[in-house]
């Protein structure tokens, strides 16, 4: 406790790594206000690129696609994952362990494999590539996040609440709705937020399962980085970053309420 106030090695180390983590992000944001089109030279402050961004219709379409995709897949994952986590914690089914293994596979094997697997399987089924295939693929890698988080939360809960409710005559459905769900809510919401973030970030799997006309935001950014970026991309990234900070703070706040 002697060096409570002093500058410790660990403090310097933590700060240094955090600074390095933020330097690239901050640079992207700074250069979004750059007047010059060349992104390594500073040409004065300007908001032009934001204006340009708002006038770009294809960008908005990509943004809308990404938001819709993120919402649909994180919500489906929340429903499927929460139900499964509740069922499997309450009663140890023989099939539970095996199923859990397969259900968590999408985040355990490299994304490129999931991408290839979906591409070949969807074309075998003859599904039209586009939003539908995107939602299925994204839901499959969002389920593990919700499932694992809710499961961890339920494992730490007192089982007697549900038992008491059942003893007092509540139906199983009612006990789930009134007891289990509110208690698990912080985990459900953080699982959903994390799922949304993962879906919003994904480019590899999306590239394989999307159709010709459906672009998501990360795909758009990817192709711009490959072909040549303008500060418009920076402006877009800066806006996404603001939303990210907001989502993070929200998730932290929710998961802290225990």
């Amino acid at each position, binding site marked *: 406790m002697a060096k409570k106030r002093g500058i410790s090695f*660990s*403090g310097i180390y*933590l700060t240094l790594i*955090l600074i390095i*983590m933020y*330097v*690239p*992000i*901050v*640079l*992207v944001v700074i*250069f979004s206000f750059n007047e010059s089109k060349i*992104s*390594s030279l500073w040409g004065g402050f300007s908001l032009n690129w934001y204006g340009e961004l708002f006038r770009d219709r294809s960008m908005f379409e990509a943004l809308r696609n990404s938001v819709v995709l993120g919402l649909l897949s994180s919500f489906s994952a929340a429903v*499927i994952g929460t*139900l*499964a986590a509740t*069922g*499997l914690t*309450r*009663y140890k*089914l023989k*099939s539970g362990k095996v199923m859990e293994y*397969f*259900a968590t*596979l999408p*985040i*355990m*094997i*490299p*994304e*490129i*494999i999931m991408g*290839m*697997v*979906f591409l*070949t*399987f969807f074309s075998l089924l003859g599904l039209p590539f586009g939003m539908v295939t995107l939602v299925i693929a994204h*839901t*499959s890698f969002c*389920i593990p996040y919700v499932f694992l*988080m809710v499961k*961890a939360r339920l494992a730490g809960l007192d089982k007697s609440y549900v038992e008491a409710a059942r003893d007092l005559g509540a139906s*199983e459905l009612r006990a789930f709705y009134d007891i289990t769900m509110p208690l698990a809510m912080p985990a459900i919401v953080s*699982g959903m937020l*994390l799922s949304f973030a993962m879906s919003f*970030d994904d*480019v590899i799997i999306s590239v394989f399962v999307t159709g010709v006309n459906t672009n998501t935001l990360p795909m758009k*950014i990817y192709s711009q980085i*490959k072909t040549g*970026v303008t500060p418009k*991309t920076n402006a877009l*990234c800066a806006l*996404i*970053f603001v939303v*990210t900070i907001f989502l*993070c*703070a929200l998730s*932290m706040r929710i998961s*802290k309420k225990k």
Partner: protein
Amino acid sequence: MKVKNRAAKSSLLMAMPMYVFTILFTFGPLIYMFALSFMRRQATWGVINEFYAGNYLRILEPVFSGVFAESFKLALITTFFVTLFGYPFGYFMAKLPPKHKNRAMLLMIVPFWTNSLMRLYGWIIIFRSNGILDSVLIALHLSEKPLRLLYTYPAVVVGMVYVLLPFMIYSVYSSAEKLDWSLVEAARDLGASKTYAFLTISLRLTMPGLLSGIILTFIPSMGLYFIADILGGNKVALVGSIIQEQLLRARDWPFAAALSVALMAATSLTLYLYRRITRSEDLEGLV
């Protein structure tokens, strides 16, 4: 017995959506991939339904086995640096007082949630010739000429380490947070040196977190090809990029499937070893 049966039934009912979804969209596709890897490609389009092991023999050709070796090497280098930088971070973070801990946690989560392409793009700005890094180094007289790091191997390694570092930090942190610090204090009181106490107590008790961090870094780094694509130009070929090329450009799906099966075998082996070593099923700090 009857009550138990009913409980089992309703539990199964609740888990059913996940069962169905998983069998339909994870298990099924994986089986199909496996089957596909033993088929033969049709000259123009599609595949021929007959048993064919040639795809796997083709992987053994030097061109492709070389790519596997290259991916493995990059994954090892990445994991090494991620461990080197991530372990102390997670460990120190767990030792912070609660107020600072929460702040550090939020600061850690934000980059993790930030779009990885955006973060990599930041590195392009830094590495680009005559970019930020070159200007700073020349201004400080640390370097005479621009380093031109963009599209080099070191740039790829930096990008990989940067993107995967949070996984290690979380794993180590969640393991170190559970650590009973009084054990370390007791050892110190009994005369153990700082290093000795760390090696015998802290390191051993945080080993599950460290190992799961290694797994969570190693597995994705075998497949993350877009970082090499963005920061390495076309110079660093990885299994991932070959699979993508075979799928989208060469249209040889059976060969792409065989490559994927081989990659999956390699990663499953790592996971299996992890489970054998730690005797645990869940990875520490995954979510």
